[in-house]
């Protein structure tokens, strides 16, 4: 029997397991490089050139350039690595998380102040909660990425 992945039916959620880690290795290691101030400067000066130093896929590079965190995660990125990308552009974890929902910053912040997203309807794919695929995007943001 192959090993269980009981987490594949959680809506709007990608668990960072060995398979995702393999897929996202270079994308995530690129993000780690942004922990050095001089690398952040180099990246900001010419993003494309900096990305081209890494053996990432074209899709990964485009997702980074678009700050499309959902796309990054789909391509093997992990939020703790991607956070370095957000940090490089002065973004907070709240802005990063919100950018993946379709909500504006205000909409997302207000949801959190009101108690956050309910787990009701969001435990399993096929229910009717706010995180389900058929209810995306959730807000009125017109921004594609972070």
């Amino acid at each position: 029997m192959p090993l269980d992945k009981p987490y594949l039916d959680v809506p709007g959620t990608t668990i960072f397991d060995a398979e995702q880690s393999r897929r996202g290795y270079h994308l995530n290691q690129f993000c780690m490089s942004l922990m050095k101030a001089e690398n952040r400067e180099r990246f900001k000066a010419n993003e494309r050139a900096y990305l081209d130093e890494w053996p990432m896929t074209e899709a990964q590079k485009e997702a980074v350039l678009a700050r499309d965190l959902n796309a990054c995660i789909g391509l093997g990125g992990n939020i703790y690595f991607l956070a370095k990308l957000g940090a490089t552009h002065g973004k907070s974890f709240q802005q990063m998380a919100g950018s993946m929902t379709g909500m504006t910053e205000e909409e997302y912040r207000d949801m959190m102040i009101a108690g956050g997203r309910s787990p009701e309807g969001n435990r399993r794919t096929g229910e009717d909660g706010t995180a389900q695929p058929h209810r995306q995007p959730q807000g009125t943001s017109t921004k594609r990425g972070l």
Partner: protein
Amino acid sequence: MARITASVYTSHVPAIGAALDLGKSSEPYWQKVFSGYHFSKQWAKEHKPDVIFLVYNDHATAFSLDMIPTFAIGTAAEYQPADEGWGPRPVPKVVGHPQLSAHIAQSVIQQDFDLTIINKMDVDHGLTVPLSLMYGQVDQWPCPVIPFAVNVVQYPVPSGRRCLNLGKAIRKAIESYDEDINVHIWGTGGMSHQLQGPRAGLINKEFDNAFLDRLIADPDGLAGMPHIDYVREAGSEGIELVMWLIARGAMGDLAGGPAPRVAHRFYHVPASNTAVGHLILEESK
């Protein structure tokens, strides 16, 4: 003989660190968070440990994908606050306790926990935010800290049961240390939160409060909860809560002693994306 006299549990939300570091702590939003730690700061003054054994997770800071230890114990003399991309937090360096940590490493490995020993690493918000919450803005932390990092980033992470048993092994290790010192053990991370995807922002107050109840009164039962329940109920990053079981496992009731005393309990939503939980348990005298 060294002894554990208390365990402390708290979320370690990075935005809390930023709020403190950027002078926003008097804003009403953050006051609600910090209000839960007023008691704790006073308690911390009255209950000063000689060493803190601090369980946390590294957030892709010291450990990249090149090397992912399940359990890593710091045995270095000191650790610098990490640059996580925003520049290092303006907090004191963390002074370690090489002798006690090496002792614990030796004992716990001999109890069949396959630790990775770390002599050089920077520590991220997972470790420094709890210190800030308990001690505020200081020139130096009040005592040495032993960092103990748990992998909760790449699956599979260690099970709740493994974490509880590790706590028991850490207690044995500390109690076999030949110096009369007072150790606090902290469990950090959580509570419910999810930082990714269309489900970002998930919070589950019922789950969190039940977790606190069971952590106090039924840690052994709680340790049996599978990972998928954390993910479904508490969000993908809610899995950090397994780390609280390490600290809980080190309390005396799980070694046949009396139940610990709840000195303080606090719960608040939100801090940034996260539900903030906080608990102080004292060993009964």
